[in-house]
């Protein structure tokens, strides 16, 4: 059982030089675990730190605080070449349309590149590439095509094939269907679900679309302003949200419902700089929310929420535990 653990991870970006220096805390105190065979969803808007989180989890960015470990091994304590070896086990599929494919590489070259990097002999490579293409439902004729000759859905499948060709144990999915048409998105989501059942691969799914997380994820962490504000089993958290932000996300989902009209007008404001970041929008804000940052409170079976409304109901969760109650299954 492979286990990726993000333990109290934080990432601060520094910008500016000498004058006007400032720093941005993109991710703060995130503790999260992904195991092979399961899907952990990260739900958040742009600016919530979710894309930074996927880069931290994929060893593309080094955390400022806390640690990221794969089966107990911290890639940032390894030499660059050893860290590269660890990459074999953990791949990323980026959003279609964010040019995750090099425009100058053919499909076969793109899918075969990871194999080249890890020294698979050329003879075996062709067969492995063909298998990977077949597995994601692409026909062999497409192997010689270039990205601009493919449809969005086909490009996204190439991205998945490329990520799977090394037989990784974990795959990070960064907005895997946001840029796709509805009918194609449904195909890709089903493909991802099937692949997980067949291969037992683990997913870290990052998206701003609540129905997508609900459909694929076993567990979910809802992010706001760089923090996980609520976490727990996807079904429970998303159908009966505890945190006001999760509730707002659910209310804003536009399902097909002609009688319902538009969802209630939500509050939109930049995150608060002090105290609970959601205080600037929260309908149930209390004076202390503007001063203190709420710790995670336990609310029922394996769920935590960072909201003072649940202080009396819940037990304060141990924030630095290595197997966080909220996210251990």
């Amino acid at each position: 059982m492979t286990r990726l653990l993000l333990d109290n991870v934080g990432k601060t970006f520094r910008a500016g030089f000498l004058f006007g220096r400032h720093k941005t805390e993109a991710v703060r105190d995130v503790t999260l675990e992904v195991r092979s065979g399961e899907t952990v969803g990260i739900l958040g808007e742009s600016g919530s730190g979710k894309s930074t989180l996927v880069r931290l989890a994929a060893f593309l960015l080094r955390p400022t605080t806390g640690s990221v470990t794969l089966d107990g091994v911290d890639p940032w304590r390894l030499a660059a070449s050893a860290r590269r070896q660890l990459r074999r086990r953990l791949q990323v599929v980026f959003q279609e349309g964010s040019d995750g494919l090099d425009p100058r590489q053919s499909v076969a070259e793109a899918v075969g590149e990871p194999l080249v990097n890890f020294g698979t002999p050329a003879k075996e490579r062709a067969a492995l590439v063909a298998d990977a293409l077949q597995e994601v439902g692409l026909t062999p004729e497409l192997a010689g095509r270039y990205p601009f000759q493919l449809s969005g859905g086909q490009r996204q499948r190439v991205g998945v094939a490329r990520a799977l060709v090394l037989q990784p144990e974990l795959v990070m999915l960064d907005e895997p269907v946001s840029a796709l048409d509805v009918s194609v998105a449904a195909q890709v989501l089903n493909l991802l679900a099937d692949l997980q059942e067949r291969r037992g691969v683990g997913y870290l799914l990052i998206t701003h679309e609540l129905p997508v997380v609900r459909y694929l994820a076993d567990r979910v962490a809802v992010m706001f302003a760089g923090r996980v504000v609520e976490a727990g089993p996807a079904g429970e958290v998303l159908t009966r949200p505890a945190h006001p932000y999760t509730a707002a996300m659910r209310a804003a989902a536009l399902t097909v419902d002609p009688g319902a009209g538009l969802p209630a007008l939500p509050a939109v404001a930049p995150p608060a700089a002090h105290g609970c970041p959601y205080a600037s929008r929260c309908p149930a804000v209390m004076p202390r929310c503007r001063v203190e940052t709420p710790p995670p409170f336990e609310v029922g079976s394996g769920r935590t929420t960072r909201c003072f409304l649940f202080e009396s109901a819940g037990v304060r969760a141990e924030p630095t535990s290595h197997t966080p109650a909220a996210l251990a299954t």
Partner: protein
Amino acid sequence: MSAAVAGLGTPGAAGELTPYLIETGAQGALRRFARNRLAVLGAVIVACVVFAALCGPWLAPYDPINGDILERHQGFSRAHPLGTDFLGRDQLSRLLHGARASFFAALAVTVAVITIATVVGVTAGYCGGAVDAALMRMVDMILAFPSLILSLALIGFLGPGLDKALVAMTLASWAGFARIIRGQVLAVRGRSFIEVAECAGGTPLGIILRHVLPNVSSTIVVLATLDIGGNILALAGLSFLGLGLRPPAPEWGRMLFDAKPYLDRQPLEMFVPGLAIAITVLGFNLLGDGLRDALDPSGEAV
């Protein structure tokens, strides 16, 4: 640019129809190039210059160095289609021989400049951080001097002669290109496929060779083409000042210099090399512009 591409300025329409309006790939680039009349004219001029540079010595009707002093300052005639100079040397022969010197010298400088600029630009753009800052400060220092002044200073330091002039020109002009290439590399570096390549276990050098260079290659080709024209001009300038090729070797800038004293009596003598330089530089610039439009229809690069 073709009419097909013009409509892309309208937001919204681009998304649905781009695949039908822009031809991609090598064939599309070739077709766009062929439709651009000025670019084709540039290509024809460049082809003529290259042909003259390669075959000039065999085409030239006279010896370019030893003329007949009695035939000096002749105008255009059947015997000397472009006249003769102050030593009675045939201008056409000197022009054809000179094409070789001008073109190959300019090409050598361009190859050297682009190589240095690519290495520095890619290193700075890909590595970022302190490496980038250090290299770019160096570039800033070089760019602080006008490049002709810098070349002259370097020649003063290195001494006269064609080889030294070429070295001086190279050292004086790589910095600007390094800055442009760095900018292109930064743009490519920020695209997701670089992160994907990192995840796939690529080493920095492997990623540079496989992903970064191919994606900045069209910029490099365009810069190189535009640079050759500039170098022919700069070399002519240095020769005109007496700092390039030593007499009596034929060279276009030197021909200008030699004709100068007789400008009032025989203006055609200066007109011939001057026009040759102007047309050649124009040809390379048209070709460069055409390549830019053909290789990058969206107008993103360069």
